[in-house]
């Protein structure tokens, strides 16, 4: 098991390195630079800017410098010498000495902010949105699937599966504007845009105030993002439970005289939920990309918007930083899914 986990972590690292190489390569393969504006800057200015951001270095050196900046941790007590000397993770150790890790570099577009600032302010919001959507899809999806399976071929089953096919077929881009219009504009029950939390956060992303002022902003985007995944989970839970419930060990449990409730919760559900866990990895990826759209439709100041605009703006460090961060989150999610899968189902032997 430990060997398996170590292997997976190593593999995750290889993939991240590959991803950074692809991103860096594609980024620099596109002609033109971050300082091409509609009004052309004088060549001297561009030269100075290129020098300042080391864009005149050979490509391999830029890449290596970037990786060193992100990967190598530093421990020092000097105050930052320049704006670009900032790190995403700063842990005070003793006195003035601090542990610094992950310098994602400056942003070429917003001069007063570094990529670290952008990540620090925007990522928690995207993260809240994603986590709430996953929770919602699990809370709705699993009971729906269980009810549909236990009452197979009844009205409940058909109703549940109709809801599920609706959820699968209506993507966030389609549901978002409709929800905004109905609940935000026409009925005025919920705000059509915005987000209700501000830094500082507890534990990096948990907002300090969780009142109605926070929740009313979350309902629409979380519903739009969560419902399609709730549908996927419901369908999968139903199928998996239907299969498990016909197994011999369920008959054994029944013949022992256990109540139906215990048979379902202790024996059937536990085994039926294993396949459901496998989709959580891809689902997490889909929800993360879904946040790009949801943030745009619901006017949420999250990281997704920065990711999209940085690509059109050729803001190299922002592209690299956000891509790597998203890649890291998705790969970590997959890693956790793989590990929990191996842990839950001892029949699976990895070597």
């Amino acid at each position: 098991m430990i060997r398996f986990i170590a292997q997976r972590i190593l593999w995750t690292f290889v993939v991240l390195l590959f991803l950074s190489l692809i991103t860096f390569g594609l980024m620099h393969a596109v002609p033109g630079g971050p300082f091409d504006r509609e009004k052309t800057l004088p060549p001297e200015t561009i030269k100075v800017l290129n020098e300042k951001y080391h864009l005149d270095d050979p490509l391999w050196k830029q890449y290596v410098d970037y990786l060193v900046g992100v990967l190598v941790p530093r421990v020092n007590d000097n105050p930052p010498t320049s704006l670009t000397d900032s790190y995403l993770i700063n842990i005070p150790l003793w006195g003035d000495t601090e542990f610094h890790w992950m310098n994602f570099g400056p942003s070429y577009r917003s001069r007063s902010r570094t990529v670290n600032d952008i990540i620090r302010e925007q990522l928690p919001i995207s993260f809240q949105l994603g986590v709430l959507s996953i929770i919602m899809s699990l809370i709705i999806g699993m009971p729906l699937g269980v009810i549909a399976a236990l009452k197979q071929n009844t009205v409940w089953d058909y109703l549940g599966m109709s809801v599920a096919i609706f959820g699968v077929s209506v993507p966030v881009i389609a549901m978002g504007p409709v929800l905004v219009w109905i609940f935000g504009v026409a009925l005025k029950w919920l705000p059509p845009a915005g987000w209700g939390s501000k830094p500082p956060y507890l534990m990096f992303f948990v907002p300090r105030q969780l009142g109605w002022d926070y929740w009313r902003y979350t309902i629409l985007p979380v519903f739009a993002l969560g419902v399609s995944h709730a549908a996927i989970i419901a369908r999968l839970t139903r199928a998996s439970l239907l299969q498990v419930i016909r197994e011999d060990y369920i008959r054994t449990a029944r013949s022992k005289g256990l109540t139906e409730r215990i048979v379902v919760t202790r024996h059937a559900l536990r085994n039926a939920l294993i396949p459901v866990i496998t989709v959580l990895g891809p689902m997490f990826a889909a929800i993360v990309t879904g946040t790009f759209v949801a943030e745009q439709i619901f006017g949420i100041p999250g990281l997704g918007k920065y990711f999209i605009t940085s690509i059109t703006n050729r803001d190299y460090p922002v592209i690299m930083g956000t891509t790597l961060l998203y890649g890291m989150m998705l790969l970590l999610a997959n890693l956790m899914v793989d590990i929990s899968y191996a842990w839950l189902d001892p029949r699976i032997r990895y070597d």
Partner: protein
Amino acid sequence: MAEKETIAIPARRKSGSLWGDAVYRLSRNRAAIMGGVLIILLILTAVFARFIAPYTYEEQDLKSNSAVAQWELSIFPMMEPYANITDKYALGADNLGRDILSRLIYGAQISLSVAFIGPVVALLVGTVYGLISGFFGKNVDNIMMRFVDLMYAIPTMLLIILMMAFFRGSFNLSEPGSFAWWMNEIDKRFGGMLFIFIGIGLTAWMGTARLARGQVLSLREQEFVLAARAVGSTNGRIIFRHILPNILGPLIITVTLAIPGYISTEAFLSFIGLGVNAPTPSWGSMIAEGSTAIRSYPHQAILPAIALSITMFAFNFLGDGLRDALDPRLRGT
């Protein structure tokens, strides 16, 4: 396999081939038939868009920008005070004075073509890749599958977004006469569709490759392959005549079920501005444009959203039906 199928079929019908049975089962599935009919209608709309659409997708009438049809006021009465009412356009006009109905009709072209290109690439490339990898095994398999693993581990959406940004940025500025320049010319001619096809195609094949390989690995060791080899069949004949027909069913199911994903990927790309080039309409870009004006002109975003959802419904119904028909054991999954 074939014997088992014939038992499952009611006696009132003469049992046919495996595919015949599948078609029969599909024809008994009402939702799938509904989806199929809808898809055929959508295909006809896309193919004959030029004849059906009352206007072209780029024709502007600046006097009627954001115009609203009379009937739309009864659904969205809040538009009454400021609406620019028109009877020229059945569904109103967008903020540039272009007919929404015509743009919706032309928008079907891009969604439908993605719905066909995606699975075709996934099936062709993925199957061949998986067949080769699984059949030859050993080092070939190892190298080919490590590559798939690496590509598969990278989040698809990030990869597509990066590639689209690369295509849009670099091919535009390439030297006339070069390969990239020709690609860009073709892309322009198709309103930006080519690069979407390439972007989706480059990421679509990996799942099928894995599936095909897994199937081949289990089939390769079976007696009928040994028998074929014993009578002197070549590798090519074994792969295409004996193994391929056996793995085609699950592959078709997978790629059909993936179609709604391709459609929403395209809509997503166009939504964030990396998809089709303006003024080519895509439902995704129409939703993006419309959702900026959702407070004053909700129909501009909601109509393309409905069109997109209906198409996704149709493909989901057909995909589910096809899965039930081709592999009855998977019913309801």
